[in-house]
């Protein structure tokens, strides 16, 4: 590092795999207007460390692709089988870009990875990333030509509790969904939420049926319903939700909470954290019952990660 903290080495290189071994002409995806568009690397949306090797890390990028590094980030290689999936040319960007934002590693099965892309949907590999299949059955999206299409759903985030890797919770463009067969099928669990639009979703560290979301008014109005910032918690794995309000602004609050900007810690009771586009980070040390702002006046918070120190 230089004295001002900048890396000395060359920039990270994320080069899409177009090798013959991929077996696919990985050249285009669908653009907003339905024409085909070349894949272009724009940015990294999410980094997910391997569960087993500190030098192994996955990166979800825009335009949607999955990369991995096995040398601590010095070099990156694409898991091209994902983009080479037969549905790849049908993938299209959401308004935020065509980003791969969710990477879930199965602690019981090192060959299984689930990912999600806006606005292509969710995909899973069971062979360590060589081949992938869409896992979107049960999703219903009225804003696409075929509401039940195999791909094209705007999945905003998926969360999993490590003790139950087959149970997935999804915040979709609209709808909060649940799968109990590792994405094989999905059921809506929006229940009594005031709005089932939103971005983040997370699971309590010690209660696999306790789930958190932050409802947002709509896809065109990105702020909490009635200007009241509320986290909603379900202790029943969905359908029945309670608003968590103590310590959160309950009037004139027009921030958004982005998909990667919520996290939980491993303490008991579980801490919950989220950041807003207004630059605040709120924390609850009691699983959401009470909240306090711990940081303010940041730029829009894109990501919140938590590490509990011994």
């Amino acid at each position, binding site marked *: 590092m230089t004295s001002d903290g900048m890396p000395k080495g060359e920039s990270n290189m994320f080069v899409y795999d177009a090798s013959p071994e991929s077996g696919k002409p990985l050249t285009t995806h669908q653009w907003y*207007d339905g*024409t085909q568009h070349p894949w272009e690397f724009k940015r990294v949306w999410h980094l997910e460390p391997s569960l087993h090797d500190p030098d192994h890390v996955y990166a979800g990028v825009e335009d949607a692709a999955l990369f991995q590094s096995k040398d601590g980030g010095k070099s990156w290689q694409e898991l091209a089988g994902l983009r080479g999936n037969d549905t790849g040319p049908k993938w299209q960007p959401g308004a935020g870009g065509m980003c791969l934002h969710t990477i879930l590693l199965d602690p019981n099965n090192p060959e299984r990875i689930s990912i999600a892309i806006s606005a292509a949907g969710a995909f899973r590999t069971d062979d360590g990333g060589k081949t992938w299949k869409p896992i979107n059955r049960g999703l219903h999206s009225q*804003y696409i*030509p*075929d509401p039940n299409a195999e791909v094209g759903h705007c999945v905003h985030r998926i969360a999993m509790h490590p003790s139950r890797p087959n149970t997935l919770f999804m915040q979709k*463009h609209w709808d909060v969904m649940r799968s109990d067969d590792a994405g094989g099928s999905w059921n809506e669990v929006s229940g009594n939420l005031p709005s089932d639009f939103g971005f983040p979703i997370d699971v309590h560290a010690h209660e696999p049926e306790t789930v958190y979301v932050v409802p947002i008014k709509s*896809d*065109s109005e990105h702020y909490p319903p009635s200007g009241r910032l509320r986290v909603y918690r379900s202790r029943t794995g969905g359908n029945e939700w309670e608003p968590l309000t103590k310590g959160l602004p309950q009037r004139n609050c027009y921030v958004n909470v982005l998909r990667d900007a919520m996290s939980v810690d491993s303490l008991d009771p579980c801490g919950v954290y989220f950041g807003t586009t207004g630059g605040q980070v709120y924390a609850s040390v009691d699983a959401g019952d009470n909240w306090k702002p711990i940081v303010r006046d940041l730029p829009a918070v894109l990501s919140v990660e938590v590490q509990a120190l011994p």
Partner: protein
Amino acid sequence: MIRVILPPNLRTLAHVDGEVGLELNGTLTQRSLLDAVEAKYPMLRGTMRDHVTQVRRPMVRFFACGEDLSHESSDAPLPDAIAYGTEPFLIIGAIAGG
């Protein structure tokens, strides 16, 4: 009755619930259909097509009978199923928000 389904934001703008119904004579084309929609709901002028050039807005797409017609000529006849109302004409907006 020709059936047209607007995207949610344009339904809000036009104050309509559900499908839009149109009665039209003559050969049905994208142009005649959209002209009729805009005549019935003037607040939609400029939202689906450019005000001046009448070219489809880039974030708007047209589907019918499982086909993407966005890049077809606006004067090409639409499928009979649209003209007879057995299938709706879908106007789809880009996914805004995610």
